[in-house]
């Protein structure tokens, strides 16, 4: 079953065509790797799907429904993501930053917001500590009382991923999730991705490290100068002439 389908996405700014008609689909329970050199438009594409940027033309569908609206409403439609530069609240603890994913999932409508507010004032909501702890432990994170501003870049990536997992997404988009992460962390991420896939979540993985992508992904695509030049199973891609030329040229 197709989870994410992008059709003919175009985006230009300042007279430069950043994306010129990108189309691809990611199935539920599939890891889809998107590779390409820096500046190929990978992050722009992810921002457009996530709602952080607007696009000029094209359609994005999630589970068959057109994805529109602001960032938060897309998150409620089942989208979660991490950022190339981890985005966390530096003054909050790791635990609170991870719990943000839970907060987002449970505070969609105005009604939920008001109920959550009143419950909070009455000190009736014990933040579901167990869920947060489990998500953190699964990703080899510990000492969750530390300030997010005081931990390493790699740990912040794990915090972001834990936060995204708590949203229980239908599609998760990861922007270079391995860079700066230690060996334990990488193993934990790979493990988490396999569990997600088994659960039927679609995973869009962006990286310029093709070795990692080919090891993990089920299918992949190569983005160059705003266009998808090669797409298919990993084996097919690796056999493709264009892919090999650009891949070899890029590394």
């Amino acid at each position: 079953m197709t989870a994410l389908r992008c059709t003919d996405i175009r985006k230009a700014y300042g007279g430069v065509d950043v994306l010129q008609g990108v189309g691809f689909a990611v199935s539920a329970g599939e890891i889809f790797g998107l590779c390409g050199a820096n500046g190929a438009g990978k992050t722009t594409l992810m921002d457009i799907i996530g709602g952080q940027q607007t696009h000029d033309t094209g359609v994005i569908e999630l589970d068959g429904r057109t994805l529109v609206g602001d960032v938060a409403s897309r998150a409620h439609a089942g989208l979660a993501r991490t950022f190339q530069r981890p985005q966390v609240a530096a003054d909050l603890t790791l635990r609170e930053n991870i719990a943000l994913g839970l907060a987002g999932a449970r505070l969609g409508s105005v009604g939920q917001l008001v109920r959550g507010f009143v419950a909070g004032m009455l000190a009736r909501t014990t933040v579901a500590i167990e869920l947060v702890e489990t998500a953190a432990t699964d990703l080899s994170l510990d000492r969750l009382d530390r300030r997010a501003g005081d931990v390493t870049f790699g740990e912040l990536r794990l915090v972001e991923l834990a936060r995204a997992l708590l949203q229980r997404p239908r599609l998760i988009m990861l922007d270079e999730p391995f860079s700066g992460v230690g060996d334990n962390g990488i193993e934990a991420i790979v493990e988490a991705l396999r569990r997600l896939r088994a659960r039927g979540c679609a995973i869009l993985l962006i990286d310029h490290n093709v070795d990692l992508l080919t090891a993990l992904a089920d299918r992949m695509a190569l983005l160059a100068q705003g266009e998808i030049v090669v797409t298919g199973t990993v084996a097919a891609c690796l056999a493709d002439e264009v892919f090999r030329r650009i891949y070899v040229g890029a590394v």
Partner: protein
Amino acid sequence: MELSLLVSCIETGAFYGLVGLGYFLFLRATGVVNFAMGAYVMFAGVAYASFSENPTTSLGLAIICAVSAAVLFAWITEDGILRPMALRVHDEFGAVMAIVALMFVIEQLASLAFGARPLLGRELIEGTAVIGGLAIDFQDLLAVAVTMAIFAVVAIWLKHGRYGRMLRAVGDNEHAARSLGLPVRRVRLVAVLVTGLICGVAGLLAAPQAALSFQSHLSFAILGFIALVLGGVGTPWAPLVGGMLVSAIESASARYIGGFARDYVLLALALTVFSLRPEGLFTIRVRA
């Protein structure tokens, strides 16, 4: 009668525009909407009025003292408050609070130094010109002429001056400007000091028009801000247009609704602009 109303409306508009220009430059340089700026203007105006009250004081000395006070406050804002805070706080609200506190400090300083009584400044030049049967004080002509000159100089400076051009780069993207090796700190400081200078002059021009007190800064800050928001940040001339519009709306509401309606009309105006066209009438297209 109608014509003299028009003259005073233009003059008030020029004053609001000048404060708006101060906002514009400060915002470009630091990314901060500095509503302590009304307090710079007020302090310079009240200082000038207080010094010039004594007929033996030389006007030149009063002018220098008043303008340098405004420049000094601008400098303190940048080097004493905003820059040290930016090193530590990553969100905007620290700056908002510091600006509000600073505004209050300058207000209280003015009331301590010059008293709470409203003061009227001596005219910078005396005499009256008769133009088309209408008597216009030289002071009014001077105020409008100085305002126009300041706008022209700032516009040329931003387009051709060394720091002016760098300021545009800094305002667009401070990180990029820094990595390009531009002297961001110096550019910011120059723009901030120019802002102080403009506010000082605005205070000088306002002081002989109406008696100022230490509380006048709130309306200066608000009206200058609306002038900026109405005009937008697209060109340095935009605050002037915004100032003229604010002044016209203000005097029309005073004439047709009543003097006290000013506060309501301005509130309605600000809310309308915020909700319909927060980017102002003249904007440069910035990529999303």
